[in-house]
């Protein structure tokens, strides 16, 4: 009797302990996702209401010029941000992998930006990029009077300033991921390649980097979701301006839902963003969980 009692406790205790977490996740995460999805099919304006209008909000969304502009910006920002972060991160990782001195210190320095909040990064870069107080003024004070670096107030170029700040913040982190990947490679593989006659360059391009595919994939996923959700960096750096020139879906969603009384359309844009993230994440999780790791 006592044995079966004990079994019962062993069986229920773990479930009991995790149940608050599960409940909170279900309600506040999946619950609100579902609520948002529901709202995106309603006529909701300032306050939620439940008069269903099918895909009307989605149609309105994609007819909205600001939304299309935000999507274009996201595309430009996302592609550049991910590509540059990966390239810079990889180069830094390979350089740091050459058994240099003070590697630990350098690694930490490169990683520090990631410890900052995007708001801080945004604010610092806003000052740096401000023509009247930042880099432009500094260079001019050195004597180059005609030097101009005013991308942040140029509607055509402002989106690239966000790329700069984003890369500054995230590439150290990407470097750390790549460095871990490089370190995970058995050194005797490199030795074998050297004996086979490969130069250091071809050792990296033909063996090491190709065998880090999973690492690239993880880095890509993380950067992609930072890009899609980017909000605070842009709010702090440009506030979406000049004009709407650095608008992205996250800002669009926030402003339409909570400032312009277009809750239905805001919800629709949120769902589109969620779908985008899922479209990237699901194949990733699928491949990670299904195939055995390459070794």
């Amino acid at each position, binding site marked *: 009797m006592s044995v079966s009692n004990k079994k019962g406790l062993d069986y229920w205790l773990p479930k009991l302990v995790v149940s608050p977490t599960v409940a909170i996740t279900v309600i506040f995460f999946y619950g609100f996702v579902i609520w948002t999805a529901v709202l995106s099919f309603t006529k909701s304006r300032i306050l939620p209401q439940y008069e269903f209008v099918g895909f009307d909000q989605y149609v309105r969304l994609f007819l909205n010029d600001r939304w299309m502009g935000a999507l274009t910006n996201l595309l430009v920002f996302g592609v550049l941000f991910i590509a540059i972060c990966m390239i810079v991160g990889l180069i830094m990782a390979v350089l740091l992998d050459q058994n240099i001195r003070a590697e630990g210190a350098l690694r930490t320095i490169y990683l520090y930006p990631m410890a900052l909040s995007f708001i801080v990064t945004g604010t610092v870069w806003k000052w740096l990029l401000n023509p009247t107080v930042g880099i432009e003024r500094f260079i001019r004070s050195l004597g180059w009077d005609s030097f101009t670096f005013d991308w942040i107030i140029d509607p055509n170029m402002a989106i690239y300033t966000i790329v700069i700040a984003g890369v500054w913040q995230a590439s150290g982190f990407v470097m750390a991921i790549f460095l871990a990947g490089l370190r995970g490679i*058995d050194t005797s593989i490199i030795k074998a390649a*050297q004996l086979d006659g490969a130069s250091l360059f071809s050792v990296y391009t033909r063996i090491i980097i190709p065998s880090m595919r999973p690492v690239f994939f993880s880095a890509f996923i993380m950067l992609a979701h930072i890009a899609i959700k980017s909000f605070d960096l842009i709010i702090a750096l440009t506030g979406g301006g000049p004009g709407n020139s650095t608008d992205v879906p996250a800002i669009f969603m926030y402003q339409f839902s909570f400032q312009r009384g277009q809750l239905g359309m805001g919800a629709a844009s949120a769902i589109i963003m969620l779908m985008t993230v899922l479209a990237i994440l699901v194949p990733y999780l699928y491949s990670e969980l299904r195939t055995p790791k390459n070794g």
Partner: protein
Amino acid sequence: MAELNIDNVYKSFGETHILKGINLSIQDGEFVILVGPSGCGKSTLLNCIAGLEEVTDGRIVIGKDDVTHAAPKDRDIAMVFQSYALYPNMNVRKNIAFGLEIRKMPKEEIDAEVHRVAKLLQIEPLLDRKPSQLSGGQRQRVAMGRALARRPKTYLFDEPLSNLDAKLRVEMRTEMKKLHQRLGTTIVYVTHDQIEAMTLADRIAVMKGGVVQQFGTPQEVYDDPANIFVAGFMGSPSMNFLNCEVTESGGNYAVQVDSEGRIFQLPIDPKQADLSQYLGKTVILGIRPEQITHVMPHVEAEPFVTKVPVKIEVTEPTGADTLVLARINDQECECRVHPTEAGKPGEMMEMLFNMSKAVFFDPETEERL
């Protein structure tokens, strides 16, 4: 093809000294086997020869070229790594072809070469698999294939057959021997397998603690060990070591053994050792189990053979022979007898001690006398 001279090579990692003055002069086309306990520096030595580790001191000369500071790729060496070191992103075919591609061999020749070694190593069905989809023994054969596809001056093999099943290992051993006879390339080969060492080697180098203890033909190393370590390391089951007192009997030196309270004199072949300095002192007698057998009339008549009754403690049948553990001079002593002759534990059994190949060591220095 070229001779390989390892000249007083030292290697330290920081304060840990791994190789302490290795001297080996290996002739062109020689098959040299390196043996020694785990951690004695065999792989480190191979890495130094290949140029993957910079030597701390000393020189490495291949042919006429001093390659001590040459890059690995300029030494014209192919190596099989203990950890296989296959390229994880390439399938088996690409793994084998990589070194040939880098050396700009024409495509058709590469294909032909890949198929030749794949056939030799019985890995043809695996050519399109990735290393992660192979078993340990299959990976090991791919690693071999990668080395054998090339025609370097020198091959270095670090335990290349250790992970194969017994049958395949014997087959591959034969292939190695044939390969060496065909190509005549200089080979340095590390193994823990006694039979591999004895059958493949032209010469065996026995290492311990970063020092070469002995470098000689298999028969020399087996019959004429330089010290107790080599004597005990080579041969399975291992040589018996018995502390015995040296006496004189009939103008001949002998060692005295005690079996169950009875004293016997085992006369010594003067060709084996001069023990005049040790009369009345203790030496270590080294005698291999196959030199202590059941009574066989044709052996009994030979010189330096003595009959001693011993008490059996344990018997270990191995199939072909039975090993009998007896007690001599209060020390364990293994004897090798025909299975039908072996007695039972606890019984007394007469054994013939054949001293014609016995060796003697100084108990202090453990060096050969």
